[in-house]
C-alpha cells in the first residue's frame, strides 16, 4: 500500500508547526516552566512527531521530510529527557561562596594527590641544589634566569636599588602574570586527559623549581627575604596551581573510573560541572595573585618591611584555607534539609 505522502504531510503539518513553535519558545526562554496542560500537550506533540518519523521511515523514502522530522524530534527529545536544570541564571556570589568551596572539599583527594606530587618535586629540587649547586642551571627554566645568580647578591641589589624597576609597567606586569598563570592552569587541568600523567608531571616540575629556589635562598641565609618575596602572592598562586592540578586529576579520575559502576559517559558527566567550578575558581585566585605579585611582592625592604609582607602573606594563606574548608558548609546543610519536604 502507498503512504499518501501529500495527504500525510497536509494532515500532520499543523502538529509539527505547533511543536516547532513550542520548542522555539522553550529554547529562547530557558527559565520558563510549563504548566501541566502545556506539558501534556507538548508531550503529545512530541510523541506524534516521533510516530510520524517512524512511519515515514518505514513506508516511503522521503529524505526531506525525514530530515525535517529528525531535527524536530531531536530537539523535542532534548527538552523532554533532560533532567538537569537549565543554566538560565548565573549566581556568582552563591557560586563563589558555596559551590566552589563545596566542590573543593568533595574532591579533596585529588587535591592531596596534586599536593603530594608538588611536595615530592620540591624535595627533589631542594635535594638536587643541595647536593650540587651547579644543578641550578638545569633546574631553573630559562625565563627565571635572574635566579641563577647568588641569592645574597640579588638581595643586596634589590634592597639598595634606588629606582623602581617596574615603574610605569606595573599593570602590564600584572596582566602578563595573570594571563600566563591562568593559561598554565588551564593547561594543567586539560592535561588530565592524559590519564593524569601530564598533570602530575606539571605539579612535580613546579615543585622542583620551588624547592630549588627555596633551598638556594635558605643556604645563602636569605630566608626572610625569600618569605617576604614569595609569600604575598605565592600563598594564593600555589594553592591555585594545586587546585588546577586537582581539576586535572578529577578529569583523570573520571577517565580511569577506578572501582566505579558508572559508565564512562556518566562519570564524565558527573565530573564536568566540578571541573568547571574548580578552574573558574582558580582563575579568580590567579587574578588576585597577579595583582599582588606586581604591586606588592616586588618591593622589598626598606620600601616595605619584610615582617609586613610575611604577615600579609600568612594572613592570605589562612583566610584562603578557612574559606576553602569552611565556606558554604552551613548553607549546604540547610538547603538539603529544605529540599526534602518537596520530594
Amino acid at each position, binding site marked *: 500500500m502507498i503512504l499518501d505522502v501529500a495527504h500525510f504531510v497536509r494532515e500532520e503539518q499543523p502538529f509539527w508547526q505547533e511543536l516547532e513553535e513550542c520548542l522555539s519558545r522553550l529554547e529562547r526562554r530557558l527559565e520558563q516552566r510549563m504548566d501541566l496542560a502545556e506539558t501534556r500537550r507538548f508531550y503529545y506533540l512530541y510523541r506524534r512527531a516521533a510516530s510520524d518519523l517512524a512511519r515515514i521511515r518505514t513506508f516511503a523514502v522521503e529524505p526531506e521530510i525525514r530530515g525535517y522530522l*529528525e531535527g524536530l*524530534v531531536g530537539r523535542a*527529545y532534548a527538552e523532554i529527557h533532560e533532567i538537569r536544570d537549565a543554566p538560565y541564571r548565573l549566581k556568582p556570589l552563591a557560586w563563589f561562596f558555596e559551590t566552589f568551596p563545596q566542590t573543593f572539599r568533595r574532591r579533596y583527594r585529588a587535591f592531596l594527590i596534586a599536593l603530594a606530587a608538588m611536595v615530592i618535586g620540591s624535595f627533589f629540587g631542594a635535594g638536587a641544589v643541595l647536593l650540587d649547586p651547579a644543578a641550578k642551571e638545569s633546574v631553573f627554566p630559562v625565563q627565571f634566569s635572574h635566579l641563577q645568580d647568588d641569592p645574597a647578591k640579588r638581595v643586596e641589589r634589590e634592597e639598595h636599588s634606588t629606582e623602581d624597576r617596574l615603574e610605569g609597567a606595573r599593570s602590564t606586569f600584572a596582566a602578563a602574570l*595573570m594571563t600566563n598563570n591562568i*593559561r598554565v592552569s588551564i593547561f594543567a587541568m586539560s592535561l588530565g586527559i592524559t590519564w593524569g600523567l601530564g598533570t602530575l608531571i606539571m605539579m612535580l616540575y613546579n615543585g622542583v623549581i620551588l624547592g630549588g629556589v627555596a633551598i638556594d635562598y635558605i643556604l645563602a641565609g636569605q630566608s626572610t627575604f625569600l618569605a617576604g618575596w614569595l609569600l604575598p602572592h605565592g600563598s594564593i598562586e600555589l594553592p591555585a596551581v594545586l587546585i588546577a592540578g586537582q581539576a586535572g586529576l578529577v578529569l583523570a579520575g573520571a577517565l580511569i573510573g577506578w572501582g566505579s559502576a558508572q559508565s564512562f559517559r556518566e562519570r564524565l558527566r558527573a565530573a564536568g560541572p566540578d571541573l568547571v567550578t574548580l578552574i573558574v575558581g582558580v582563575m579568580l585566585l590567579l587574578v588576585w595573585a597577579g595583582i599582588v605579585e606586581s604591586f606588592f611582592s616586588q618591593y622589598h625592604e626598606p620600601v616595605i618591611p619584610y615582617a609586613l609582607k610575611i604577615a600579609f602573606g600568612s594572613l592570605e594563606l589562612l583566610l584562603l584555607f578557612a574559606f576553602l574548608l569552611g565556606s558554604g558548609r552551613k548553607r549546604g546543610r540547610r538547603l538539603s534539609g529544605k529540599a526534602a519536604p518537596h520530594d
Partner: protein
Amino acid sequence: MIEPRNATLAVRTPEGVEFSLLLAGPSARFLAWGIDFGVTLVVALVVLTTFSILQSFSGDLTTAISILTFFVLNTGYNILLEWIWHGQTLGKFLLKIRVMDAQGLRLQFSQIVMRNLMRTVDMLPMLYLAGGAAMLFSRHAQRLGDLAANTVVVHTPTPKQPDLQQLLPDKYNSFRSYPHLEARLRQQVSPVEVALLVQALMRRNELDPDARVALYRELADHFREQVAFPEEASAGLTDEQYLRNTVDSIFRKSGEAN
C-alpha cells in the same frame, strides 16, 4: 580527506524511535575555527584601537588592557557564543554546524566551558593536530575537548518544511478524465517506484538538463508500460508532464474534484 568512522550519531528514544545526527567532519570544523579566529582578531583590533586613546594618558594601562583583552577574547569568545546561541559561534553558524550533547540532550554550560578550555591540549603541537588525530580515532568524530565534555559537533538540520506545492501544481491533468485508469495506476505502482518518481521531480533543478531528459524519459516509459492511458490523454505531453500527471493521479485524494 579521511571520513570519520561513523558519519552519523544515532539516538534511540525510549519511545523506540530512532533519529540520527549528521556529524561534522574535520574540514568543516577547521574552517569554522578559522572564521572564528579571524573574528576574534578583528574584535581585538577594534577594542585596542578604541583603548589606544588612553595611550597618552597611561601607556602601562593600555598595554595591560590589550593583554587582558586578547586573552579574554581568545578564551571567552567560543564559550560566550556557544552559550547564548545554543552551540553555535559565528563560524559554526556560517558553516551550518552546531555543538550538541552526545546523548542528544540539552547542552550544559559546563560542557561548553569544558570543551573550549580543553583547546589548549587539542591545539598541540600546532594547528589542532592532537584534536584532529583524536577526531579520526574517536567513534563520533570528537576532539579531546569533546570527549571530556561529552559533546559532538553536528550539521544543523535545515528546518525546512517540504514543499509539495512545487510537486503538485494546480494544472489541468488530462488523466483525470479516466478515473478507472488512475485507480489502476495507484494499485500497480510500488512505494519504491513512487518515491523514485517524487524524488526525480523534487530534485528537478539539481539535475543536469541532459541527465534530466534522459532520466524522465526512462521513468515515463516505465510508467507508460504499467498503465496505458489512451492516445488523447497522453498525446503532446512531454515526459516530464507525463510524470507530473502520474504523481498527481497517485497522490490526489480520491474524492477531490479538479
